[in-house]
């Protein structure tokens, strides 16, 4: 994409030395061979084990949801006054995870961060699957899920529209738009690679299927021209969505009047949290993936390190959010806010809060150390901590705000039931199942984009061999 005439590119040449995005010794051919081989070779044994595990979790989901639909949301631990529990916690958690993909693909693309190339494909896939998981919760959590379509503005004989003042309606639009654009973006990016697979596949059925997906891609200049235009346009479309979706999700709480929800800091704090959680999940997936498929050459330490840096930065924003919540509770002088803050720190869910601080505020500080940032093992452990921490953050926001609100007589407690856990574990199963299918049948790394950054190709930040 970038050319030598490009002034930005010239400026990039002046940059100091950085570790390469691709390990030395690769050519365009070797990149294509190695990445497409992952899909075209025989299925490795570990894949079957992994897929079986993921699929059995998916069955847990099936059982949980069947029971849920048969009995009602009362099978969960939600109650009066805590009307939302695991359902909305998981919704926000998954939506948050679903942020990294588009951020990596779109924003980093527009910012010309070429290191994104080797991780954007599976980060986008991860986004899609996470949004698929998230998107189910708003339906599952309804008391009468068969009427979920009432949340859409469709023409009906009663002339009834949704109630547009409700943030839940904004959610419907935000999430469905995000899901649509992410899917399009992911698919458009996939087209040239599907053509590669079509051409390389020996199997007739695979050829037909990949060929179908490649939509007649022949790699002509016109194709490339249209492709580049479409991709940048979609990136432009997706960029505001990265910010808007979680902003809208945060409105679910910020619009409410419950102490602990009603806060103006929520939109930026949620977006930062989403990127934080998203990058953690990308790391959680990328680190085993590169080891299993021997893709260390493409997903290099530099990628890991960059993601670690993003996590550290967004993590600090999130911690700032926690602190500002406490500060403003005190500064407001409002008894409800002050009590809410006190209750978070000393109430019955204080251990959730302390664990949250450990996971989200303390553990990521190790990322200041270069040694940690460059160690896959350390990064993996930290990314798990962050995922847990971000789940707890949503638990804290939803449960501790609701369980002791305005009137002391209506205070209550919340515990998830086995069906709450089943549904959550089940969506993890769905996510992993989709991911295993993805890495098996589609190139997890963008082949044609990788080709642009290996030495000797026509583009790329480090086309010349460093001294």
């Amino acid at each position, binding site marked *: 994409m970038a050319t030598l005439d490009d002034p930005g590119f010239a400026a990039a040449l002046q940059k100091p030395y950085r570790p390469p995005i691709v390990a030395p010794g690769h050519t365009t051919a070797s990149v294509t061979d190695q990445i497409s081989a992952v899909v075209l070779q025989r299925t490795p044994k570990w894949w079957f084990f992994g897929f079986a595990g993921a699929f059995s979790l998916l069955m847990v989901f099936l059982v949980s949801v069947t029971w849920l639909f048969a*009995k*009602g*949301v*009362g*099978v969960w*631990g*939600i*109650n*009066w*006054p*805590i*009307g*939302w529990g695991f359902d909305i916690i998981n919704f926000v958690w998954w939506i948050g995870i679903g942020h990294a993909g588009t951020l990596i693909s779109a924003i980093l693309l527009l910012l010309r961060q070429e290191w994104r190339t080797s991780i954007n494909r599976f980060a986008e896939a991860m986004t899609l699957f996470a949004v698929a998981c998230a998107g189910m919760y708003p339906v599952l*959590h*309804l*008391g*009468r*899920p068969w*009427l*979920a379509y*009432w*949340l859409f503005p469709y023409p009906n004989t009663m002339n*009834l*529209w*949704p*109630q547009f*003042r*409700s*943030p*839940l*309606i904004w959610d*419907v639009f935000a999430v469905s738009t995000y899901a649509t654009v992410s899917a399009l973006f992911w698919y458009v990016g996939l087209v040239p690679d599907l053509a590669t697979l079509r051409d390389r596949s020996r199997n007739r059925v695979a050829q037909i299927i990949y060929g179908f997906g490649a939509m007649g891609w022949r790699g002509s200049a016109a194709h490339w021209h249209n492709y580049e235009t479409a991709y940048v346009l979609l990136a432009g479309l997706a960029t505001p969505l990265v910010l808007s979706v979680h902003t809208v999700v945060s409105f*679910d709480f910020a*619009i*409410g*009047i*419950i102490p602990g929800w009603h806060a103006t800091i929520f939109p930026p704090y949620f977006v930062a949290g989403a990127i934080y959680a998203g990058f953690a999940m990308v790391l959680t997936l990328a680190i085993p993936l590169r080891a299993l498929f021997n893709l260390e050459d493409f997903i290099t330490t530099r990628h890991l390190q960059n993601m670690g840096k993003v996590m550290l930065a967004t993590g600090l924003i999130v911690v700032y959010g926690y602190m500002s919540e406490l500060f403003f509770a005190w500064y407001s002088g409002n*008894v*409800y806010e002050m*009590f809410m803050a006190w209750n978070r720190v000393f109430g*019955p869910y204080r251990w959730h809060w302390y664990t949250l601080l450990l996971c989200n505020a303390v553990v990521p500080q190790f990322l200041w150390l270069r040694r940690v940032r460059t160690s896959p093992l350390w990064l993996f452990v930290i990314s798990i901590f962050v995922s847990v921490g971000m789940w707890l953050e949503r638990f804290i926001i939803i449960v501790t705000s*609701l369980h*002791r*609100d*305005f*009137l*002391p*007589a*209506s*205070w*209550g*407690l919340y515990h998830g039931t086995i069906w709450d856990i089943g549904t959550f574990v089940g969506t993890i199963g769905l996510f992993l199942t989709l991911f295993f299918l993805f890495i098996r049948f589609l190139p997890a790394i963008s082949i044609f984009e990788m080709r642009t950054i290996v030495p000797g190709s026509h583009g790329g930040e480090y086309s010349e061999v460093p001294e």
Partner: protein
Amino acid sequence: MNPKKANPMDSVNAKGKCEAAGVRPPEPARLDLAEVRERLRAKRGPEFWRSLDELAATPAFQDLLHREFPRHASEWTDGVSRRRFLQLASASLALAGLTGCTKQPVEKIIPYVRQPEQLIPGRPLYFATALTLGGYATGVLAESHQGRPTKIEGNPDHPASLGATDVFTQAAVLTLYDPERSQTILRAGRQGGTWGGFVGEAGATLRALQAINGRGLRLLTGAVTSPTLAAQIADLLRRFPEARWHRWEPAGRHQSAAAAARAFGRPLETRYDFTRARVIVTLGADVLCEGPEGVRYSRDFADGRRVRGDRQEMSRVYAVESVPSHSATVADHRLQLTPPQVEAFTLALAQRLGAAPSGGPVVSDATAVRWLEAVAQDLEQNRGASLVIAGEYASPAAQVLVHAVNQALGNVGSTVYHLEPLEADPVDHVASLRELVRDLNAGQVELLLMLDGVNPVYTAPADFGFAQALQAAQKNTVLVHHGLFDDETSEYCHWHIPAAHELESWSDARAFDGTVSLIQPLIDPLYGGKTSHEVLAALSNQPDVTSYDVVRQFWSTRLTAGGAFEAAWREALLKGLIPGTAASPTPAALAGGAVEQAAGEILAALGRVEQGQITLLFRPDPAIWDGRFASNAWLQELPKPIVKLTWDNALILSPKTAERLNVSFHETVEVSAGGRKVDAAVWILPGVAEDTALLTLGYGRKRAGKGTGQGFNAYALRTSNALWSLPAVQVRGTGGRYELACTQNHHLIRGDEVNEDALATEAAAERHVIRTGTLAELRHDRDFIQKEREKPAADDSMYPNYKYPGHAWGMAIDLNVCTGCSACVVACQSENNIPVVGKQQVLAGREMHWLRIDRYFAGDLDAPQIHHQPLPCMHCETAPCEVVCPVAATAHSDEGLNDMVYNRCVGTRYCSNNCPYKVRRFNFLRYSDKDTPVLALVNNPDVTVRMRGVMEKCTYCVQRIEQAKIESKVEHKPIAANQVQTACQQVCPTRAIVFGDINDPQWDVTRWKADPLNYGLLEEINTRPRTTYLAKLRNPNPLLEPAEGAEHGHA
């Protein structure tokens, strides 16, 4: 919706209604035996036999064979009675237009071809009748929809009601339909007994007894005030002179009767007139919400406490007690003492007022001494206008002293009066039951008839060993049990006869003041029950006499005042009472020596008290009374006032005592005394005195329908000499855990438990949830309540306010007179078809009551003030729920209601989350019982039954509003002021709730809302609630208040 306006129908129509529903079998052609003989005489040989065959084939003969007793007799067997029920149920359903969603019965049903007079489908009728508790009547108006009673309202003309009722009365319709009620006559515990079989067997025994003047015939009933029943029993006793009539009312007024007998020489009943009392002292008594006169007392009491900006006067109330009572929650001062100390205080007060011989200081505690002086001075300054109440639970000796105190203060004849006993043939119940047990054990009982649900196996004092006596007597005695339920007692009996519910019966009963009410049926017996009158009639060789005949016949000679009987009878049924039957006060002189003896007795008892001993108090349960309502799910799920437990009782301890015993919430203990023991779970309640434990009656039942196995049996420790208070019990933790379902502060996290009450108390004070003040503050600054909290201006918003050109509904609740009795909660449940969720769901925090009563403690948790706050939907002007609903299922109406559209609700629960008052209720599961056909009958047809997944909440009884609007449209005249009443308002004994059109200055609610005491809950968050509260005021004694730190408390 004013029941006065509705057309009450008399008995004739009530009967006609059932007949028209086609449930009554066709009258068989009469079989004329003389004619048959004549016919047969003319025949010979084969012809004769053929004629006999023909004769045998006639329906009349078949019918004669079929019925041992011609009318109705065969209906009582199981199969047929169920069919009768189905016919009735389906006919009712068909007429209520509900058949669309129910299966059609196979039997032919008959529509209203000739519509009974006054019956308009879709419009309810109200019948004046009465419901009894412990024998005493409360006059009610029963709302009937096409022949099925759905709701009970108080009878405004009845002295015990004045339009209000208590919780038990409200829940009566559910007991009526309760599928757990016994539905068939049981012979030796098995189905298949018949009425004929019973009458035959009992008749044979009776004939045998006739020869020996009825020796061995025993009757056991609860307290009986019914003149008709009393006359029937008297008649029976005349026929069998050696028969005995025993009485056992588990939660009756035993000690009061004993005290009156000691003080006055006869068991006079004491009544109070709160309207004249300016200073009231209660000594361990809870007169406001207990017993048959509680509703009336509450009203009179409240009238003396109602303060407005323009009526700045109120009575002063002192409560001295060991466990928090309703009266104490609305008292000005509360002194918490252990039960022996309360007795000591009583004695000291009597001594101080010169009503008892002085004999050394009996009260040494500094606070109590200060109290004594302050209370005594106040009482002396209000001679003749003061009132000291000891109540049933005080020892007879203490009650004697209180009689003397009231006499000394000149209150007798003013605030206190005495009545000759209203119970027919008053006896000492304990002695009476003891005699029965003795005779059972001695084998001197041939036939024991236990009438009207009396359940001595469960309720008899533990030292009597009633169950063993009954078991021993099984061989030689015919044991007959008659009651609504196949219970612990019927298990031992040869015969169990299902009783008819009071809403299915003809009877009569007297109210607390003696007024006689006629009880008329709203529906034919659903389960083929028999009334006591019918059982007794059957034993008098009149098995086919109905209770209607019995009652009518009894009154036919007595009810002739003002002309013809028929007119008087009709009048009595219409009004719900027989005018002029109230008992007149009787003069009572204190017996000489009684006071001295009582004082000595108390001193002696005090001498026996050892430090640190725990006194166990027994009290009737506020929800299920003595256990008789154990199967009533509305009452079981009603959060018990103050303690807020549902479905169970618990051993209630003070925080300090629990700490000393090292037990906590939900932990099991063994309570033992005198070789008897009971396992119970602990609940800690601030407001209980130290060294005091409370266990309410009625739980731990083995055969009680839905109440089976819930809670712990207090009767197992209750002995005949410790009916209400058992000294020196041992409480020992057993290390188990029993989850108790509490609706407020669930206390389920260990370690945080005790703090939760303190935390809630502190938070409530900070948040000014309950605004309180004193009368002096109000007099000093009319608007002091308004200044307590910032109130955002109504035009602060950039959006224009709603306009209400027509009505604008609103509600105000006077916290000053709310006693927390919870009648409104059950009334709301009954009116609005609110489902019962069961203990597990309450534990999960999913109770469904639209109206809840929040309880707050204030001040020192070891001796707190207690406040009640009824909390319906606030119908906020800027409702937080409305903006967040994604499908507009909750919306603002053009009359200011916050409407809930069940059909549109998808169940996101966002509205509930965003409701700062948390008044919304969600159907997490399918809570409405749609599988039990009989329970469909209890529903109000004007209110939707909600499905699972739907949010619901208080609607301000929108169906009543709409009804009034329709009426006003039809009649072309505006809705008159105060014409619309919500269910909670209508039932409130203290008139603490008022509802109406706040656009119209004629309505009471508008005046209440203009009062300087009116405030909105959480109004600083700008929800602008339409339900507002009138602040709670106290009228403290200046002698006590400054020393107590002038607590200007806010809970």
